[in-house]
């Protein structure tokens, strides 16, 4: 297809996808679709590869999702069929049980020319806990009813039996049903729009156009990769906890750029977890969850990029089996969103090493989704409501400060007005805004964290905060910029009843209790000593930076609202003498952690763990975390080797199993 027709085709394909998305958005019932926009829409080629997505509606994750394996699990298709699954282990299409994916083959005469597809996040899919998500769950069976790939519609007729099984198992059947109908409406819209395109461009033209779109995206991705120096770039990042109250979980990546292609080798990533924080990918070479960070990088480097599966062609991922990024059945995966956030910052970090001039510092890297259940003292009704997501700032950018209070890979989230929440839910907000001194200091400061404080008035008020992380390991700064401040979660701050909740994700409150939560701040970029003094003064006047932090981090001395030039020069000279040339600034917690868990020590652990059968791995990791810090104090030899030899005596089965 010639390039002019291809551009016209691209616009029509986008229009078809956006038409579907707006139809779904307009007709869906649940808040997940309406408010959080937790849904996606795609047009697929006959092989199940994404050829077009909407640009301004829905979530950002499934640009490169491969429907092929799941499509292939249904033997034959006829016009009017709609396939569906929510099982994370059937073709690695759905990535946790609440996500119901559906696809409709689009026939032109007797051939499938495309599929209309997408997913919606159902409020509840059944299982052990309401909303089906908790990091404490340990196997997929606890996370809700699982539907293997099957026909939800057969030649236009609803598969009542399958539907009844699903609805019987979920807590809000009417919402699931409403969303399902809206979803089917969107798929039918997609079918109509695609058929109109076949009519306009002809069958051959349509096929050539779909192929052309993927080729074009591939070309754009390769063009970007060519602009990145060849080399191996190793980076690792950690979530604070691998289970409730657990040890850190390391994700590791060697990004290998070779000409116009790249390999993402995740070897060195922790073993799969006995919690719901695993990321189900099946180890596919181009699984979309492994590449979400890459979409952000590519789009940031070229905002004209076409978003479809062509983008992922130049990339090959290696995610060893039995790790948190490629768990084996029946590992629980419901809370993979927490790990996915870290996976994105892992990728941003590796690209920052490859192209430091063009990449920002780390974004906050976690967004706590807050829910409350309380009783209204006047009506005595129980009220269940979502409160604002607590989102952090973006990392300092090459050309400006990080965006405050959200941004980067958290920019899709919406908040709810204070006035609406206070009208509907018997709580009172005391504060909602930006957290001073939370952005990493830098020539370009990290975006500030957001902070939320509220008071409740009923006993046994129940709070959940999903995706709690980064209370310990901070969003990193780059090129001399400091790390952002960590997140925190406190009950009754500043009183004698203060309780530090940290990464806890469930708590209860009594009447008069105040809850404080703030997100992490974004990392800073470039030395704060290079920041324009006037901008530091402005930050102080705006309340973004305190007078003390201006002196301590930026070396800018402010007295009575004005800069003391002489004192500033002296302070900056003093600070400059202590600066080191490190690419990353991780903050004291990670520095301390890595003094024990150095790259070599971690590699030793990874090697021994990888040699064990999957069901021993998390166990061994947990034991090593108990033992290694103490052993490291005693010996200069590798503490992992020493610890393993002790464990060999205690658990001889471990090394003979499998």
């Amino acid at each position, binding site marked *: 297809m010639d*390039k002019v027709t291809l551009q016209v085709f691209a*616009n029509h394909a986008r229009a078809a996808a*956006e038409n579907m*998305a707006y139809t779904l958005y307009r007709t869906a019932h649940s808040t997940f679709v309406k408010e959080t926009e937790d849904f996606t829409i795609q047009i697929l080629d006959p092989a199940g590869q994404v050829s077009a997505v909407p640009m301004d509606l829905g979530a950002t994750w499934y640009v490169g999702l491969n429907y092929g394996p799941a499509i292939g699990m249904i033997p034959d298709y006829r016009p009017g069929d709609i396939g569906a699954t929510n099982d994370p282990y059937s073709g690695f299409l759905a990535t946790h049980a609440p996500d119901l994916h559906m696809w409709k083959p689009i026939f032109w005469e007797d051939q499938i020319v495309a599929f209309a597809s997408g997913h919606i996040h159902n409020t509840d899919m059944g299982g052990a806990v309401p909303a089906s998500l908790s990091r404490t769950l340990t196997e997929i069976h606890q996370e809700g009813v699982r539907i293997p790939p099957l026909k939800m519609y057969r030649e236009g007729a609803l598969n009542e039996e399958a539907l009844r099984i699903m609805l019987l198992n979920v807590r809000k059947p009417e919402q699931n049903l409403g969303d399902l109908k809206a979803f089917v409406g969107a798929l039918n819209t997609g079918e109509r729009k695609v058929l109109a395109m076949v009519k306009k461009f002809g069958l051959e033209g349509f096929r050539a156009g779909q192929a052309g779109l993927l080729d074009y995206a591939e070309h754009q991705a390769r063009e970007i990769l060519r602009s990145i120096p060849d080399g191996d770039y190793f980076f690792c990042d950690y979530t604070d906890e691998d289970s409730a109250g657990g040890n850190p979980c390391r994700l590791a990546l060697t990004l290998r750029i070779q000409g116009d292609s790249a390999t993402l080798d995740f070897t060195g990533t922790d073993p799969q977890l006995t919690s719901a924080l695993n990321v189900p990918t099946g180890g596919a070479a181009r699984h979309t969850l492994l590449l979400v960070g890459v979409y952000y990088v590519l789009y940031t480097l070229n905002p004209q990029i076409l978003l479809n599966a062509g983008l992922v062609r130049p990339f090959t991922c290696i995610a060893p089996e039995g790790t948190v990024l490629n768990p084996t059945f029946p590992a629980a995966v419901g809370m993979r969103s927490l790990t996915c956030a870290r996976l994105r910052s892992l990728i941003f970090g590796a690209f920052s090493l490859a192209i430091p001039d063009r990449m920002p510092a780390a974004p906050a890297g976690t967004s706590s989704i807050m829910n409350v259940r309380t009783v209204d003292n006047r009506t005595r009704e129980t009220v269940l409501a979502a409160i604002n997501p607590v989102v952090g700032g*973006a990392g300092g950018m090459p*050309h400006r400060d990080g965006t405050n209070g959200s941004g980067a890979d958290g920019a899709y989230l919406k*908040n709810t007005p*204070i*006035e609406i929440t206070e009208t509907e839910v018997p709580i009172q907000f005391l504060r909602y805004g930006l957290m001073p001194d939370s952005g990493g200091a830098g020539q370009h400061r990290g975006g500030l964290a957001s902070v939320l404080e509220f008071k409740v008035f009923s006993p046994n008020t129940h709070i959940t905060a999903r995706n709690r992380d980064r209370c310990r390991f901070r969003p990193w700064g780059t090129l001399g910029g400091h790390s952002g401040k960590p997140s925190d979660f406190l009950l009754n701050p500043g009183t004698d009843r203060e309780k530090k909740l940290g990464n806890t994700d469930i708590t209860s409150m009594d009447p008069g209790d105040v809850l404080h939560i703030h997100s992490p701040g974004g990392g800073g970029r470039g030395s704060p000593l290079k920041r324009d003094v006037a901008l530091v003064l402005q930050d102080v006047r705006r309340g973004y930076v305190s007078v003390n932090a201006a002196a301590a981090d930026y070396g800018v001395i402010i007295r009575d609202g004005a800069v003391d030039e002489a004192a500033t020069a002296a302070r900056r000279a003093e600070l400059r003498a202590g600066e080191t040339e490190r690419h990353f600034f991780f903050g004291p917690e990670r520095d301390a952690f890595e003094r024990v868990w150095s790259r070599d020590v971690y590699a030793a652990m990874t090697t021994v763990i990888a040699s064990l059968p999957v069901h021993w791995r998390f166990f061994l990791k947990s034991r090593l975390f108990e033992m290694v810090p103490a052993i490291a104090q005693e010996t200069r030899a590798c503490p992992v080797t020493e610890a393993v030899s002790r464990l060999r005596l205690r658990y001889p089965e471990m090394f003979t199993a499998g």
Partner: protein
Amino acid sequence: MGWRIGVDIGGTFIDFCALDEKTRQMHTLKVLTTPDEPGREVMEGIALLQQRHGMDPAEVTSFVHGTTVGINTVIQRKGADLALITNAGFEDVIELARLRMPEMYSLFCARPEQLIPRDRIFGVAGRILADGSEAEALDEQAVANALELARARGARGVIIAFLHAYRNQAQEQAAKAVVQRLAPDLFVFCAAEIWPVIREYERTTTAILNGYVFPRVDGYLHSLEQALRGRGVTAPPMITKSNGGMMNIAMGRSSCVSMLLSGTASGVMGASFLTRQAGVPNALTLDIGGTSADVALIIEGRAQFGTGELIGEFPLYVPSVSVTSIGDGGGSIATVDGFGMLKVGPESAGSVPGPACYGRGGDRATITDAMAVCGFLGHAPLAYRSVTMERGKAEAVVGALARKLGRGLHETAEAIIMVSISSMFAEVNKLVARYGVDLGDFTLVPFGGAGPMMGCLLARELGIRRVMVPRRPGVVSALGGLVAEVKNDFIRTMFIELRAEGLAALQAALAALRAEAERWLRPDQNFAGVAALQVSADMRYRGQSFEIETVLEEAWIEGGDLDAIRAAFHARHTAIYAFADEAAPVQLVNLRLVIAGATEPPDFAVQEKVAGTPRPERLVDVWHDGALHRMPLFLRENLRHGHEFSGPAVVAQEDSTVCIPAGYAGTVDAHGNLHLAAEG
């Protein structure tokens, strides 16, 4: 009997529509804008109307003016330095906005720099709760301290916005009194006075826009009033509003925010007048100028209203005619990327330097250049003779792209048009999906300088079979002023469950709104004619996070017929979302009232009907659908009521050019509108 004048200011031109009620003739005029001296062009236009058409200023019975001075103040960031006084702990409400950002795939996504920097935002103690009760008294000393700092930091005006003030304005009013007492030189606006609706970000940002543009708008309107009086125009000038209506100057000077989108709104109102006159119920209006392309829906004769329209980078939450931007107009620039893909926009040559063919220094190919190369343009003087077409320049810039693409010159020009049409197609499609309408029942109404040039091509892409080109596409917005009603919106946040317990409050709110509206229309606007009231409510099912406006009958509220109200909501919900949840509890969030004082519809002379085909001026060669066609060129003034002809053809007129592809048949109606219908 006198003269009625509608005036609209655009980016390059200011347009006049003057109806001579004696002859029932409409005269139109375009004058170049004088950005450095806003208002001077209005006087120039009045002088021209006197000279050319013998208009006596004393005979002007109505003068309705739409101005861009407000919106330009925001876009150019030339507004007032403001301070914001708000609740302590909530100073960042305007920066956080609603969190979500449009460019969600970019790590560099950011919100615009705020109109009030954070160091002029002051939190003070004091708190009203959701039920309107006071939890903490206002700290008036803190207000005084904030004022001192605000002044030291250069503030010229103050915005006061407190949580839940839509329920209880006492603290806002108390803070305002402090400002007026201690700083009488600073102007002050309270957010709940500007638009008393629930949702703190939306209400605050609307009040900030009002204050930001206030000094300029106030100054402009004041000098306009003086100048008109000096010219002998005694009729009180009226200002068009974003809601498609109008208001007097006194109101405009304080309620600046309600005029910010008057230009685009007037265009839709003008088009809706014309479609009504022509008996067209459903229309998609397409307004393309040099720098913008906007569409709007007219459904069953009514323009659609909404909130959250963008003023520059900031959303505005007073009711406005819903208009959607679908591109950047005739000045959009075409480029070829590394893969050989042809892109059109988002870069635009704007009105300066403009398309290459205007010969004003533009050196990159635009849509207008492509139209010139194809031969659609350049047969008659453009834009009231203010532009001379240099086709050679268009050929040079389009030729450069043709070499990159390895295509012929004409093929490249047509490719630019196709690509830009397909991108407008994608944008219109979103709008259609959002409203859930079927464009098969719609007529495309193109206007603006470049609308008629692209209209048929876009209609063809969208599957729209009927196009109506107004007689004077260049002045539809000015016409909108001529037909505007004296109109204002009132709102009261209720947030009640639709149950018997809430009825008394609802009835009281309706009575209060009606009294407020009557006061606005009669004494304030000095209006004596027939007024219409429309009551509506923003409602939702409990648990939903957005409301749907549903039109209600006053009698339902007065008579306590909650079932009728509920049924109306279910029906509206079904119309928009394709389902209703009859079992779910319904909440009424806001009660609304619109009052509109009717304006006598202008009575335009009707043309006598003739038969046959119009006489072409000459035949012209136009590249179109992949081949060179010889087609007739008609001058618009020669097209008479009853004339019929078939495409392909070009119709040239002084404010626009109509491009008609093959397969369209044209007829002219009694008001000179050109109706084009797809054949077969």
